[in-house]
């Protein structure tokens, strides 16, 4: 029987937390890139593309992330490709993130007054120029606080990757709880580590939000 000190538990959890952070970053950056592409396509005023993307968003927001993970994990294997939990988790979280971010950002673009589009169109700017020089810079300012806030959602979402066997913080917590027989302590520590990752991000999002609305009070 090996004895585990609190430090042993914490050290191993912190090592596993690296993977939580890596997975969050991959999903956030990948999801941001896909989300941006979807946003631009959506703003291109193509009816079919628009309704397709609306459907995409509805599917990812209307189904459990856990199911999306399972579907990708088993779905990729169906094509005869050998999947690792790592690939499936990255892919599922990227798609999930992209659906949410494209919806958040569309709201921000909609918040830019219509006249801005019309004014830039009357200056003979192309669609791409209108977007990159006039609309997106203004939308970006509004978009930062909710985007940072959504990062918390992504970090918490990575916990579900433990279910398909990806060893991140939650999975490591389960494994350590099984060998130490101290589930209360271990899951308490796991929750605390998630909290120390997420709480500063939440606070920062709140600060950004207040800064943005400082003129309206």
């Amino acid at each position, binding site marked *: 029987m090996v004895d585990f000190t609190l430090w042993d538990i914490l050290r191993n959890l912190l090592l596993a937390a690296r993977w939580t952070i890596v997975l969050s970053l991959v999903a956030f950056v990948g999801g941001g890139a896909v989300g941006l592409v979807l946003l631009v396509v959506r703003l291109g005023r193509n009816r079919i593309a628009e309704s397709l993307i609306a459907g995409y968003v509805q599917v990812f927001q*209307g*189904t*459990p992330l856990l199911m999306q993970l399972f*579907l990708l994990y088993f779905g990729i294997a169906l094509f005869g490709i050998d999947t690792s939990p790592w690939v499936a988790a990255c892919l599922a979280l990227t798609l999930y993130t992209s659906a949410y971010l494209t919806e958040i950002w569309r709201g921000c673009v909609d918040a830019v007054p219509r006249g801005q589009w019309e004014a830039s169109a009357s200056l003979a700017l192309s669609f791409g120029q209108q977007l990159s020089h006039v609309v997106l810079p203004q939308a970006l300012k509004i978009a930062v606080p909710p985007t940072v806030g959504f990062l918390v959602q992504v970090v918490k979402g990575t916990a579900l990757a433990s279910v398909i066997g990806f060893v991140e913080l939650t999975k490591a917590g*389960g494994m350590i709880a099984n060998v130490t027989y101290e589930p209360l302590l271990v899951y308490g520590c796991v*929750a605390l580590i998630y909290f120390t990752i997420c709480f500063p991000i939440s606070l920062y999002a709140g600060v950004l939000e207040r800064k943005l609305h400082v003129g309206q009070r």
Partner: protein
Amino acid sequence: MRVALDFWPVLIQWPLLLEGAAWTLGLTAVATLLGSAIGIACAWTRANGPWPLRAAAGVYVELIRNTPFIVQLFFVFFGLPAAGIKLTPLTASILAMTINLGAYATEIIRAGIISTPRGQIEAAESLALSRLQVFTHIVLPPALKRVWPALVSQIIIVMLGSAVCGQISMEELSHAANLIQSRNFRAFEAYILATLVYLVLAVLVRRLLYWAGPRFVFGR
């Protein structure tokens, strides 16, 4: 490579899926009622309570909102027995979902409460209503009306999150899909059907709550 999908072996197990969906809805209904009650109580505390209670409610909200639901569930189901509190999968699921929804509902309802115009409260006080009466009759109904869409969205998020409860062998929808695929090895088909059921449930629950809100909760 050709992909062969066969939904039939999954479809003939439809009673399992139906039963799972019923459990998911049941869990959601109970968590909604209890969670909203916690939300209202904590929102009142955060707006009007004495400062130690206000701080406690704040800590509760932030702790829950900044940790994943699956960790909360595992803490309740695997962790609490070590402290002498043994829970069945059903009670653990309900407890975790209620605590989770309660924290989000607190923030949502509080936003509705603090946007109540000052004059309405003063008018009610001038009519000699007690503090409790002012809250339940004057402040709360319009506050719920203002935040209803946000609250409904959160309830649906909690319902979708309940898929995780299958991991502690709660027999809800995702667990049913898992059971089916363990019988016939049609994993992808089973999960896709279960996912579709979730999608339908999400749409239906949203419709239902939008319909029920003005009729039963806050009045038109």
